[in-house]
C-alpha cells in the first residue's frame, strides 16, 4: 500500500473516532457514559483527533522529512508514518469495535450486567462508598431534606442504602416516612410472595464501566404494579431495616408509586 493511501486511511480512521466522540457529546448521550468532568475532555479529545485526522488527509501528498538526525546503526529509511501492523489490519482493529459498539449501544446496562454491578448485592458487600456521606441527625434531616405536602422526606437512594451498614444513620431513618426515586427492576432474593421489586440507581466514579448499582428493596405487600423493567419511578413509604437470613436489608414499605422522568444526571456522581 502506498504511503499516501495509508495516510488517508489512517486519517479517516482517526476522523471516525473523532466523529463518534463529538456526536455523543453533541447529542447529550455522553451523559450516560461519563462523569461530568470527563465530558469536556472527551469533546476536546474529539476535536483534537478531528484536526489530526483532517490535517494528515489534507497533507497526505506532501513530501517531507522525518525532521531529525539519524545516528549510526539506525535504520535511515524509517518514515515515522507507517504503523507496526499492516494498514488494513490496523484499520479493522480500530474501526470494527467502535462501529459495532455504536450500533449496539442502548446507553444502559441489561439486567444481567446490572446484577454484576451489584444490583443484587447486600449492602454489607458494598460499603466502599459509605464514607462519601455526611453525618446524619434528625436536625439535619429537617434542615437538608425537603418534606413533601404529604409528609414524606425526600432522600436519595444512596442514603437509604448505606444506612444499612451505619447504625447512626439507620437509627435516624428507620421508620421514617420518605420519598425517593430510581429505576425499578425485578427482585430475585427473598421474594417468594412476589410482592417485592428492587429500586436502584448507578453510582459513577469516572465512567459507566466503573459504576456500581445502589439498590434498595421495595415491598408492596401486594402484587406490584405493572411497571416496565428499568423505568423511572418515584416511591413514597416507610423505610425499614429488617434482618432477613441473618443480614440487614433496606426495605421501603411502599405506600405510593408513580412514574417519574429520568433526572438530568441519571447516576450518582462522586462529586
Amino acid at each position: 500500500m502506498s504511503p499516501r493511501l495509508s495516510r488517508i486511511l489512517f486519517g479517516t480512521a482517526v476522523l471516525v473516532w473523532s466523529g463518534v466522540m463529538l456526536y455523543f457529546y453533541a447529542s447529550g448521550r455522553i451523559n450516560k457514559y461519563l462523569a461530568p468532568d470527563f465530558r469536556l475532555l472527551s469533546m476536546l479529545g474529539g476535536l483534537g483527533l478531528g484536526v489530526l485526522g483532517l490535517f494528515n488527509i489534507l497533507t497526505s501528498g506532501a513530501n517531507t522529512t522525518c525532521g531529525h538526525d539519524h545516528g549510526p546503526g539506525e535504520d535511515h529509511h524509517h518514515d515515522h508514518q507507517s504503523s507496526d501492523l499492516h494498514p488494513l489490519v490496523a484499520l479493522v482493529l480500530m474501526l470494527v469495535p467502535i462501529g459495532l459498539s455504536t450500533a449496539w449501544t442502548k446507553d444502559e446496562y441489561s439486567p444481567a450486567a446490572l446484577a454484576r454491578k451489584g444490583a443484587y448485592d447486600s449492602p454489607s458487600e458494598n460499603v466502599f462508598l459509605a464514607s462519601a456521606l455526611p453525618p446524619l441527625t434528625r436536625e439535619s434531616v429537617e434542615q437538608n431534606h425537603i418534606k413533601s405536602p404529604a409528609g414524606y422526606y425526600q432522600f436519595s437512594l444512596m442514603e437509604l442504602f448505606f444506612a444499612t451498614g451505619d447504625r447512626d444513620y439507620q437509627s435516624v431513618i428507620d421508620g421514617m416516612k420518605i420519598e425517593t426515586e430510581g429505576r425499578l427492576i425485578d427482585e430475585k432474593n427473598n421474594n417468594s410472595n412476589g410482592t417485592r421489586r428492587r429500586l436502584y440507581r448507578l453510582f459513577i466514579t469516572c465512567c459507566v464501566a466503573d459504576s456500581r448499582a445502589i439498590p434498595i428493596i421495595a415491598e408492596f405487600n401486594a402484587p406490584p404494579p405493572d411497571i416496565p423493567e428499568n423505568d423511572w419511578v418515584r416511591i413514597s413509604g416507610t423505610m425499614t431495616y429488617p434482618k432477613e437470613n441473618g443480614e440487614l436489608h433496606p426495605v421501603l414499605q411502599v405506600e405510593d408509586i408513580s412514574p417519574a422522568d429520568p433526572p438530568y444526571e441519571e447516576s450518582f456522581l462522586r462529586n
Partner: protein
Amino acid sequence: MSPEAQQDFALAFLSILFEGAPFIFLGTLASGFIDVYLPSGTMDRFLPKNRNASIFVAGLLGAVFPVCECAVVPVIRRLVGKGLPVSCALTYMLAAPIVNPITALSTWKAFQGQDAFAMVGSRLLLGYALAVAVGLIAARLPITAILRKKLADSLESSGKPAEQQPGHDHHCGCDHDHHHNHDEKTCCGHDHSHSPTGGEKLVAAFRSAMKDFVDVAVYFSIGVSITALFNTGIAPGAEWLDSLAGSPTGAPAALMILAFVLSLCSTSDAFIAATLDKFSWAAKLAFLTYGPMVDVKLIFLYQTVLRKRFIIMLATGLFLATGVVSFLLT
C-alpha cells in the same frame, strides 16, 4: 453474543474509549512533536557524568520528555545508537511511560474517588524505583548480554560513543534508503545539508503523531474490548478472574498477566484499572506498574533493541519485584 451482551459490551467499550482516547491523543501528539522537534543530543546533555547518578537522572527524564511505551522504544534505539549509555537508555525506557506528566494526570483523573493522589504517587515511585534498579543492574552487565548482536557489534566496533563519529549526524531529507558505507574521509555522495522547512517539520510531526496514535489506538481498542467483556461478565474467564480478586498473591499476579495481555498504553491504562473494582488497590498498582514496562507488544518492540534472553530476564524480574511490592502493600 446475545443482544443483551452486545448492549452491555457496547456501553462499557464506549465509556472507556471516550474516557481514555483524549489522553492517548495528548500523549501521541507530545511524542510526535518530540520525535521531530527534539534534537538528538538534547537528552545526553541532561545526564551527569557519573554513571550511577546518570541512571538516577535518566529515570526522571520522562518528566521532561514524556513519551508512552510504544514511542519510547524507537527513541531509545536511536539514542543507544548515538552513544547514550545502555543502562541510562534502559532506565529511561522503563521509567518514561510511567514517570511523566501525562500518565500522572490520566492516573489522577481515573482514580478520582479512589485515593487518586496515593495511586499517582505510588505508581510514579514504584515505576521509578524499578527502572533505576534495572539500570543499575544493567550497568554491571556486558553490553553484549543486553543489546542485540547487530547493535552491540556496531557500538563495540566504533569503540567510542557514536555521537563522536563524524559524517553520521545528518538530516535525512530524502525519501530513499541510506544503506551505504562511508568512512571518515569520504562522503556518501549526496547532499546532507537539506534541512526541512518549518512547514515540512509540522507535517512530519503530525504524521508521526498520527502513526503513534494509530499504533496505540489499535492496542487500546483490543484492550478495551477485552476489558469490556470481563467488566460486564461476558468473557468466559470473568468469574475466574473475580475469584482471584481476594487473594494477596493471586490478585496482583492475575492483574499483571492481564496487563501483559491487554498491552495498554500507559496514558490510558489507569482508566481500565479503575474499573477493576473487585481488586485491591495494591493489585491495581501492580497492573499499572508492570503493564507499561512489559506487555505483549513491548516484547516485540524490545526485540528491535534487546537480546531475547535479556528480555525474558527483564520480564521475569519485573514480574517478581512488582508482585512482591504489591503483596507487601496488600
